């Protein structure tokens, strides 16, 4: 018999340590994946924008495969299918790796759009000043195009954070897994779901506020 009680504070204080560790694991996995997605996105986005042969085509394949298949199936594939080929990862590795691969694909599109928005005459000006192609990218395209792609890439990072909740299916003890596992034992379903909703919404809304802040502070002077 489930009693019609609702004791959010009791749920949180009794399971404080576990919930906090779950939250930290969520943040840890997200941070690693976001950092990775940033690097992958910047490099592959640059390769796409500059039409670097082979790398550019491979990036298109990578992006299309990731964009057109569900991330949940990608997680299943990495966790259950790759071991058949002798490639075995532990849960923590699958957790950050799968969302990093996913985020990297979307982020390379964000960066490509940003880099392509930089007018060609800016790059020409760089070459005219004697910069090499690479130096022109570092000093002209990256600072300008990178700033253009900030809002859309933060959107991708928010999705990365939300997608870490999918690690429930591989049993990695991030926030969703931790909170739901506790309520499976104690039947405090409502309390557990409240904790999840409040925590994720605070994180997501906080990051969204960051987008608006970044948009106003980092926007290019001329578009302000």
């Amino acid at each position, binding site marked *: 018999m*489930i009693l019609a009680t609702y004791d959010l504070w009791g749920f949180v204080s009794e399971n404080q340590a576990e919930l906090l560790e779950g939250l930290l694991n969520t943040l840890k996995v997200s941070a690693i994946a976001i950092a990775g997605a940033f690097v992958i996105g910047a490099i592959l986005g640059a390769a796409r924008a500059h039409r670097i042969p082979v790398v550019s085509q491979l990036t298109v394949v990578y992006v*299309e*495969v990731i*964009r*057109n*298949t*569900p*991330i*949940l*199936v*990608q997680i*299943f*594939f990495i966790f*259950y*299918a*790759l*071991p*058949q*080929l002798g490639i075995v990862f532990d849960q923590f590795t699958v957790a950050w790796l799968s969302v990093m691969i996913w985020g990297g694909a979307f982020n390379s599109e964000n960066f490509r759009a940003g880099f392509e928005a930089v007018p060609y005459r800016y790059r020409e000006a760089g070459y005219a000043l004697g910069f090499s192609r690479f130096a022109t990218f570092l000093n002209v395209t990256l600072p300008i195009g990178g700033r253009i792609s900030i809002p859309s890439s933060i959107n991708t990072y928010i999705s990365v954070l*939300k*997608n870490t*909740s*999918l690690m*429930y*299916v591989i049993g990695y003890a991030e926030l*969703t897994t931790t909170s*739901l596992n506790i309520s499976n034992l104690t039947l405090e*379903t*409502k309390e557990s*779901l409240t904790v*999840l*909703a409040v925590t*994720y*919404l605070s994180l*997501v*809304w906080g990051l*969204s506020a960051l987008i608006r802040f970044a948009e106003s502070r980092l926007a290019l002077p001329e578009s302000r």
Partner: protein
Amino acid sequence: MPAWVEPVARYVLFEGLPGTLRVSAIAVVGSALIGVLLGTLMTVDFLPLRWLIRLYIEVFRGLPILVTVFIVYIGLPSVSRSLEFDPLAAATIALVLWGSAQVAEATRGAVQSIPREQHEAASALGFGWVGRHGFVILPQALRRLLPPFVSLLVNIVQNSTLAQVIGGLEVLEAGERQNERLTAIPPIGLGEIHAFEIFGGVLVIFFVISFPLTRLAAVLEKRLARAGFG
């Protein structure tokens, strides 16, 4: 082809795929109807209503869809026994909550992008609020909403796999059940692992559905931009 392939493929395509398609179809239609209604109401000059819809949008776009799935599947029944749904229905409801929030946001933008004069001209012809939006504003706004609708369809088809987490029989769950069956020791299963082929096949199924749709969305987007709507 090895003998195990045929029954696995049959199960995934004839038991799993219909689940995926049914959830997706209902979720897309539900999201579109509720989303367009909410998005249009967002443009009404009545602050409490706007705040309420804004809250709905921010909550269901902000939550991981998996959490929404659990709220519908285990949260609602813990509040009232009459709110119990089977896994596929629960996943569909969660997808509609998320999808309608997405559509509402897009619709608000599309409706607001229709010039004031269109509203004024419709009013001058004697249309009320409903007629003005139903016959004049929305038909123009929908044109702009077509590419986001196609993207929504792709996202909903992919996110319908979340039903697997609560045991709903769709493509991924069908593949997972077959994977477990084959792995089981004989005589129940084969004692063989075919996870790579099975989950690889599931990836291919989704790619085959999604890829043409993402191409279509890109084409529609371009056509719209060329028509001067970008």
